[in-house]
C-alpha cells in the first residue's frame, strides 16, 4: 500500500515537472521585446479632432495618446498610481493654492523645437481651462502658471484646490501641446488638431478618411531606445463583427475597447494565436447607470426609486448582458477604485416582493390591469450593452407593475432628449469614472448644473446634504479627509438614489500572441505604447 502511494507521488511530481518544462519556453519567449514592425489595430470610430488637450475622450486618446503626452500617466505600481511622463515630479503647497511641476529635460517636439515650461503654461491656461470638456471643472480656479525657468511650471489657483484631485486628473486632463504651433490664430481651427504635433513616441503620419490613420516612430523620443514599434496603423473598422474576422485573418494584430463583441469572446479565445486580455482598462471604468427624472412625481418619491433598485437583478445583468465581463455596482464609485471605493452603503438586494411592498407603501397600487403607472425609458444607444439593459429594465419594471415604454434614439437625439429637453422618465447612461469622483461622478448628483451638459444631473434632483458634501470636498485639501467625504457621498447617494448604479465594466482587448507588453498600465489602451512590441 505504501509502495503504491509512493509510486503515485513520484508519478505526480513527474507530471508536474513535465508540465513545467512545457510551460518554460513560452515564458522565456514572452520576455524578450523585439524591435521594429508595424502594429495594425482596429479603430471603431474615426475622430476628426485629434487634439486630446481639447477633447479629453477615450476615442481621441486611443490614437493621439501616442503622439501627444500628458504630464503623468496612470501606473499599477507608481506612487499615487502615477508614473512620470512630461513632468518628472509634482508637489502641492500647504495652502492648496499652488502646484509645482518639474518638467523633463531634453524633450523635443516632433518638429524639432524644444519642449519648455512655456508650452505647459500655454496648454493649461489657453486650452485645458477654457476649452477642454473635463478641464473646465478641475482647472476652473487656475489663475496663472508661473515659469521661473524652462523646466519648472507653478500652477497658481485662486481658491484652494485639492492636490489629490489635480494628481488624479494628470493622466487624462493634461495633454501638453506646443505653444509655437497654437499661439497664432484660433485654437479650435488650428491644423494641428487634425494632424497633431506632440512629444510622444510616435509621430502623426497620415489619415485616409474611412480607411486608416498611420503613425510613425519618433526617432528623437526622450525615452531610452523607445519606442519598439516602427509604425502603428489604425484600420477603421466600424462594424463590430469585422474586427473579429480581421483578427482571425491576421489583417490586424489588436482590437482594443471591446471591438470584438462580448458574445464572440468565448469562441475567439479558443482560436490559436489569439489572446483575450481583460486587464489594462482599470482607469477607464464605465458605469451602467439608471438616470432618473425627479420631475416625475412618482419618481420623486424615494420609495419608488428604492423599489426600482430592488427590482433589478444585478447578477443577471452582469452574467447575461455582460457575459461576466463586468462587476455589479454597489454605488457611484466602482469597486476597482482603490482610493475612494466604500462598501459601507445600503444594499438593494434583488427582491420583487419587497419592491412591490415599497410601491404599495408609496401609494401606487396596481390598477385593474396590474399596472401601477407608465414611464418613458430611454436607453443610451452608444453600446450594445446599454441597449440590451434597456430591454432588460423594461421587463424588470413590468415585474413590479411599472409599464415602461422604450424610446430609441440615435446618439445626438438621445443627448438632446435627456440632457437638454429632459424628455425622459428613466434613461440608461454609461458615464465614465475617471479616477476621482470630482472629475465626472459628482456632477451626476449635484444640483444647479445648466441644461445641456451631457452625463450630468439633468433629472432635476436637488439634495442639500449631497450638495454640501460635494462643495466641502471641493475645498478639502487633506487627501484622507477628502476621501472620507466622498465615502459619505457614496453612502448618501445610495440611500437616496438620485440615480441607480447597476454595474461597472471595462473593456476587453483581443490581440495576437505576437504582441508583447500590452495592458501594462491601468489606461493602457489610451497610453503611449512606447514599450509595446511585435514578435517577428
Amino acid at each position, binding site marked *: 500500500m505504501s509502495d503504491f502511494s509512493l509510486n503515485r507521488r513520484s508519478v505526480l511530481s513527474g507530471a508536474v515537472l513535465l508540465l513545467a518544462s512545457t510551460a518554460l519556453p513560452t515564458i522565456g519567449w514572452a520576455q524578450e521585446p523585439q524591435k521594429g514592425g508595424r502594429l495594425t489595430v482596429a479603430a471603431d470610430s474615426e475622430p476628426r479632432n485629434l487634439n486630446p488637450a481639447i477633447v479629453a475622450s477615450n476615442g481621441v486618446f486611443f490614437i493621439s495618446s501616442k503622439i501627444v503626452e500628458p504630464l503623468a500617466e496612470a501606473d499599477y505600481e507608481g506612487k499615487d498610481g502615477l508614473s512620470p511622463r512630461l513632468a518628472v515630479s509634482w508637489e502641492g503647497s500647504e495652502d492648496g493654492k499652488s502646484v509645482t511641476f518639474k518638467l523633463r529635460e531634453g524633450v523635443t517636439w516632433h518638429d524639432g523645437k524644444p519642449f519648455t515650461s512655456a508650452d505647459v503654461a500655454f496648454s493649461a491656461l489657453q486650452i485645458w481651462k477654457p476649452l477642454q470638456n473635463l478641464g473646465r471643472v478641475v482647472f476652473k480656479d487656475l489663475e496663472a502658471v508661473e515659469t521661473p525657468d524652462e523646466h519648472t511650471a507653478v500652477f497658481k489657483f485662486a481658491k484652494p484646490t485639492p492636490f489629490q484631485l489635480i494628481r488624479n486628473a494628470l493622466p487624462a486632463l493634461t495633454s501638453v501641446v506646443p505653444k509655437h504651433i497654437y499661439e497664432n490664430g484660433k485654437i479650435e481651427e488650428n491644423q494641428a488638431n487634425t494632424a497633431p504635433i506632440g512629444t510622444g513616441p510616435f509621430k502623426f503620419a497620415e489619415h485616409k478618411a474611412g480607411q486608416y490613420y498611420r503613425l510613425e516612430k519618433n526617432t528623437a523620443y526622450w525615452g531610452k531606445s523607445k519606442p519598439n514599434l516602427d509604425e502603428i496603423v489604425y484600420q477603421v473598422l466600424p462594424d*463590430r*463583427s469585422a474586427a*473579429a474576422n480581421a483578427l482571425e485573418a491576421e489583417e490586424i494584430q489588436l482590437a482594443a475597447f471591446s471591438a470584438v*463583441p462580448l*458574445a*464572440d469572446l*468565448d*469562441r475567439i479565445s479558443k482560436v490559436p494565436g489569439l489572446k483575450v486580455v481583460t486587464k489594462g482598462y482599470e482607469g477607464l471604468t464605465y458605469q451602467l447607470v439608471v438616470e432618473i427624472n425627479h420631475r416625475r412625481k412618482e419618481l420623486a418619491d424615494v420609495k419608488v426609486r428604492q423599489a426600482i433598485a430592488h427590482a433589478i437583478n444585478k447578477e443577471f445583468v452582469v452574467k*447575461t*448582458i455582460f457575459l461576466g465581463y463586468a462587476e455589479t455596482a454597489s454605488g457611484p464609485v466602482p469597486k476597482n477604485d482603490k482610493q475612494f471605493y466604500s462598501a459601507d452603503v445600503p444594499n438593494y438586494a434583488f427582491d420583487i416582493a419587497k419592491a412591490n411592498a415599497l410601491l404599495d407603501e408609496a401609494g401606487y397600487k396596481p390598477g385593474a390591469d396590474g399596472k401601477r403607472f407608465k414611464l418613458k425609458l430611454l436607453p443610451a*444607444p452608444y453600446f*450594445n450593452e446599454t441597449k*440590451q439593459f*434597456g*430591454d*432588460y429594465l*423594461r*421587463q424588470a419594471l*413590468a415585474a413590479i407593475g411599472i409599464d415602461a*415604454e*422604450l*424610446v*430609441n*434614439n*440615435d446618439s445626438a*437625439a438621445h443627448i438632446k432628449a435627456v440632457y437638454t429637453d429632459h424628455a425622459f422618465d428613466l434613461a440608461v447612461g454609461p458615464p465614465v469614472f475617471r479616477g476621482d469622483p470630482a472629475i465626472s461622478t459628482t456632477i451626476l448628483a449635484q444640483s444647479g448644473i445648466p441644461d445641456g451638459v451631457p452625463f450630468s444631473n439633468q433629472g432635476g434632483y436637488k439634495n442639500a446634504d449631497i450638495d454640501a458634501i460635494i462643495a466641502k470636498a471641493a475645498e478639502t485639501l487633506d487627501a484622507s479627509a477628502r476621501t472620507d467625504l466622498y465615502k459619505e457621498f457614496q453612502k448618501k447617494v445610495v440611500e437616496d438614489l438620485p440615480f441607480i448604479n447597476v454595474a461597472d465594466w471595462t473593456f476587453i482587448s483581443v490581440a495576437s500572441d505576437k504582441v508583447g507588453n500590452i495592458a501594462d498600465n491601468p489606461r493602457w489602451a489610451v497610453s503611449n505604447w512606447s514599450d509595446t512590441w511585435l514578435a517577428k
Partner: protein
Amino acid sequence: MRRLASIPEALVGLGILAILAAMALAASALFPGDPFAIKGAPLLSPFQDWSLPLGTDRLGRDVMAELFHGARTSLAVGLAAAAAAIAVGAVIGTLAGFAGGIVDEALMRLTDAFQTVPSFLLALAFVSVVGPSLTVVVIAIALSAWTGPARVARAEVLSIRERDFVAGARVIGMHPLEIALREVLPNALAPVLALSSVIVASAILIEAALSFLGLGDPNRVTWGSMIAEGRTVLRSAPFLSIVPGIALVLTVLGVYLAGEGVVEGTAVRKSLS
C-alpha cells in the same frame, strides 16, 4: 375562387398567408402576456427544451413567442401601409386624371418628386426625423409607396372619364368631385388593387429593414429587430437570425405568390369571357 385553386402558385401563396394569419391571430392565445418576458436561460438552442421549442435569445426570451407576435406586427404593418398607400394613391390619381389641366400637372409632378427618391431612403429619413413608433413606420412606408397606385389610377381614369356613364352623371348635374370619387374611382380600382401584393411585400421588407437598423418600434417584437439582435451573436447562435429570416422570406414569398395567382386568375377569367 375555384379557378384560383387550380393555380398552384396561388395555392401555395394563399396557404402560407393563411398560416401567417393564423399565427398572428393565435399569438395572444398561445403566448399570452408580454412576448418580451424573460422565460428561461439565455441563448438556449432550438429543440432542447420543449417548453421553449425555438430556444431563447440573449436575454432568455422565448423565440417562438417573439416569432408569433412578430408575425402580427409584420402583417399589420404590411396591410396598413398598403391600405394607406393605395387609398392615398387612388384618390390622388383619380383627382389628377379626372380634373386634368393644371391640377393634373401639379399632382403628377408631386408624384414624380416622390418617385425619384428611393423609397427606403424616404422611409428612413422620415422615421429618423419623427421618431420610431408603429404609426410613424406605417406612414413612412405609405409615403414612399403611394406613387405606383397614383399613376395606375390616373391612367385608368383617363380612359374611363370619356365613357358614357360619366357623361350621364355630368348631365344629371352631379358635382365633379362626386363623379370622380363615386363613379370613376370604383371603376378604376381593380388594376390598382392588383398592385397591392407588391406593396404589401415591399412594406413588410421595409419595416424589417427599418427595425434591423434600430428604427422600428422598440416596444413591439418585429422580425427585423430579432434579426438585428441576433446579428451580434451570429457566430455562436445563428438560429437567432435564421429563424426570423426564414419567416420573413416565407411571408414575402407567400404574398407575392398569392398576388401572382390572383392576377393570373383574373387574366384567365378575362380570356374566357
